[in-house]
């Protein structure tokens, strides 16, 4: 079972990396960029039936630091249909 976990800085927490990237985009001449926030995407391949509770616990104990970060857990439906062998 494939799971995609998105870890993002909480709203209001300053993101220096995002700000630097925003600055670079401006420097490249891209107009209309209002904000840039950088997060982390973690893909897990776990045993079928792994509970949401277990996944949440993985996030809270290690994958995210809940002092500064929020996380979302997305369980991907059939993960083999579109894959090439």
């Amino acid at each position, binding site marked *: 079972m494939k799971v995609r976990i998105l870890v993002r800085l909480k709203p209001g*927490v*300053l993101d*220096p*990396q995002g700000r*630097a990237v925003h600055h670079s985009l401006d420097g490249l001449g891209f107009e209309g960029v209002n904000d840039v926030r950088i997060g982390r995407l973690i893909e897990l391949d776990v045993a079928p039936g792994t509970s949401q509770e277990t996944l949440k616990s993985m996030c809270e*104990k*290690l*994958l995210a*630091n809940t*002092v*500064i970060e929020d996380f979302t857990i997305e369980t991907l439906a059939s993960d083999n249909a579109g894959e090439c062998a």
Partner: protein
Amino acid sequence: MPLKAAVITFPGSNCDRDMAVAIEAVTGATPARIWHGDAQLPTGLDFIALPGGFSYGDYLRAGAMAAKSPIMRAVVEAAERGIAVLGVCNGFQVLCESGLLPGALMRNAGQRFVCRTVALEVGNTASPFTHGFADGEVIRVPIAHHDGNYFADTATLDRLEGEDRIAFRYAEECNGSQRRIAGIVSENGRVLGMMPHPERAIEPAAHRAMGSADGRRVFENLVGSLISA
């Protein structure tokens, strides 16, 4: 009886030797060197030091992986029993990630690695590490970090201030830390986490090279408190 200390080494620690040398220089006793994969600490310890460096290559978040290593379970238990713990730089990040200290250390607000000797204001004179300082005294200690930007929510910051747990503040803003926090102590005062490196400001030679030997006093305070205890 000589002070019995241990220095923990994680893969990627790079200030562990400096820490051991500093402890030996001040206490006269050689600290035990403990590897991150060890499950147990020596018995009868007075003091545990978590050194600076880039444990586990800062994978995931600085200090995150080290905080879950086998030896950290033993360190958390020891801290809960009241054994003095000092975390410097990456060691401070590990202490926050392990939950022994509140808050988190984020990328410096200016995005740059900062490496210089800075002035610190002493904000706590009750802990074993700080009791020999005068309240508000200014000391000079080197910093060298990329992720030293201390963050905690307002309630936590207010509590730290209210309980006099901000051990050191930067005299001048240098990395974006909230309320210029450079180091904090645990509720019982026996765990100190700080970004500046006291172990790099120990000897007269350090005074010439780094502009300060004030770091020595952090260790002298600790020795003093353990002898009088």
